């Protein structure tokens, strides 16, 4: 067939550079390098060990949510309730602990369990009642945030008792590598990125996730249990948001029922900037890691070079629009087989 020649020829003749440029991660990588160069050029302190340590500390907490969201969005769904779980889970853990009902460790397990149930409910509504994930998780956002505010009367919880706890050391213990202050959460993030990257690209489950987002009818026709895949990813997303909230709470010694407000949109932006398709079917963990760094570096860098912090959203909006245009162009080239 005429087209066969065309496809085969184009595939074989593409050079390494062309293939690199064609990858969805290439655009975010270039943007990150440009960002780093510009901020460093304007203010050399940007790449100081202290500033890098600061960027990484908070980056990994939002990053954990973004990694799970990448898989969920690849399956064609997304979760707006992650920000509220980020705030709710530490509140629940500390409330249980402070009232003497459980130990800190059991409080954490209870928080993760409740988050898993929230994910299960989200998944059940989306897959069994066929309600769009936008509406389901928006409703859940209000339920979870409302619950956090209700059980705390809107006040932050006492958190100082965590000092010296093995759990706190395991999740957010810090140490120095040369001049860099490193939190244990960075290793949790790296571990999660490696595992979820493996799941998405190498495992059978990853193939099902991509198929569930790309063409659920075809996936079902091949015997893939699309509903089970999506429910599992909703649970993963909720549990990761819960874990991120607990890590953040232990690191900052604060458990505010309002924390995490707006994180859902920032996390989705990180994932989309990294090259994962909002419509599902295609996702990249490497891209998401780049997307996380792009937004966190931007937030840190514009303050450091003297731009008012309130202007942050202007830059983020511009980045999202620019990256969407780039990904759309790459997708069209990809579909055309060039």
């Amino acid at each position: 067939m005429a087209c066969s020649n065309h496809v085969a020829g184009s595939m074989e003749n593409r050079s390494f550079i062309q293939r690199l440029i064609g990858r969805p991660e290439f655009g975010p990588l270039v943007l990150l390098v440009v960002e780093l160069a510009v901020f460093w050029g304007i203010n050399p302190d940007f790449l100081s060990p202290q500033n890098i340590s600061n960027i990484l500390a908070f980056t990994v907490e939002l990053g954990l949510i973004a990694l799970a969201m990448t898989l969920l969005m690849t399956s064609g769904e997304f979760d707006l309730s992650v920000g509220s779980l980020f705030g709710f889970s530490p509140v629940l853990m500390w409330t249980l602990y402070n009232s003497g009902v459980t130990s800190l460790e059991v409080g954490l397990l209870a928080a993760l369990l409740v988050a898993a149930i929230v994910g299960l409910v989200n998944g059940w509504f989306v897959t069994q009642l066929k309600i769009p994930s936008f509406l389901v998780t928006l409703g859940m956002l209000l339920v979870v945030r409302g619950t956090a505010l209700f059980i705390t009367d809107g006040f932050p919880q006492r958190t100082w008792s965590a000092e010296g706890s093995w759990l706190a050391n395991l999740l957010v213990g810090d140490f120095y590598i040369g001049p860099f202050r490193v939190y244990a959460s960075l290793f949790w993030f790296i571990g999660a990125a490696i595992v979820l990257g493996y799941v998405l690209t190498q495992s059978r489950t990853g193939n099902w996730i991509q198929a569930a987002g790309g063409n659920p009818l075809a996936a079902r026709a091949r015997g893939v249990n699309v509903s089970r895949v999506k429910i599992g990813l909703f649970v993963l997303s909720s549990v990761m948001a819960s874990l991120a909230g607990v890590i953040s709470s232990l690191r900052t010694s604060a458990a505010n029922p309002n924390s995490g407000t707006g994180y859902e949109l920032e996390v989705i932006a990180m994932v989309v900037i990294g090259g994962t398709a909002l419509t599902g079917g295609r996702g990249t963990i490497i891209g998401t890691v780049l997307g996380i760094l792009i937004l966190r570096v931007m937030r840190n860098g514009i303050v450091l070079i003297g731009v008012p912090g309130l202007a942050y959203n202007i830059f983020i909006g511009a980045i999202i629009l620019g990256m969407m245009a780039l990904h759309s162009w790459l997708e069209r080239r990809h579909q055309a087989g060039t």
Partner: protein
Amino acid sequence: MAEPLIRMQNIRKSYGRVQALVDANFHVNEKEIVGLLGDNGAGKSTLIKVLSGAVPLTSGDIFIRGKKVSLRSTSDAIAHGIETIYQDSALVTQLSIARNLFLGREPIKPPRFLNRMDQETMNTVARDLLREVGISKNIPPTTPIGSLSGGERQAVAIARAMHFDSDLIILDEPTNNLGVAETQGVLSFVRNARDSGHSCIFIAHNIHHVFQVVDRIVVMRRGKVVADDIDPKKTTVAEVERIITGMSDKEIRDAVADGKPAH
């Protein structure tokens, strides 16, 4: 006489008060390509949906090689060796050829708990299958389906059915929206599938395509099978059109001239 591969007997399917199938009888023999024809609303899509497990029948029996079976889902049908290929919904465009071929049945590399796909095996088998189904050009198995033409996508779907030893491959409008060369390619893929021992049901609006590839033509009208043993070598397109519409040649010409649907 040998038992046919598939026998559907007195099949009824109602949607509320609408009778989509009325005591339809239909069979497919081993290594046979059957062309299923009928006007819009004749019931051929419903018959195929029943056979592929997509919709439950209201009453009637289905036999595979003489053994009565119950097809409650598409997974049931696949397990019984019945593969349905819809033109637009058979493949995931974002996935590669190899990953589409093995979707749902990916080979796993040891140790199994790592759940790691054996991509080398998948690519090797995909390359061989594409050759077997009749694609002579060298398309890498890692090529995304979205980069392929409509005909090549049909070839991949047929190759998949052949690899997993489906006894019956149902092709729903496989030549829709394809150019002349692509159509000839798809027809040759279907012949190759038959020559490899698979049976096929070929559904197409274009009767000329059906005539080029099938061994036998079955015509449905108003939920019933009205002719089930038409030899394409011994009849004409006009004669089959007459059976489809239930009208004489003159009535068809008059209906076309009046702009009325030919029922």
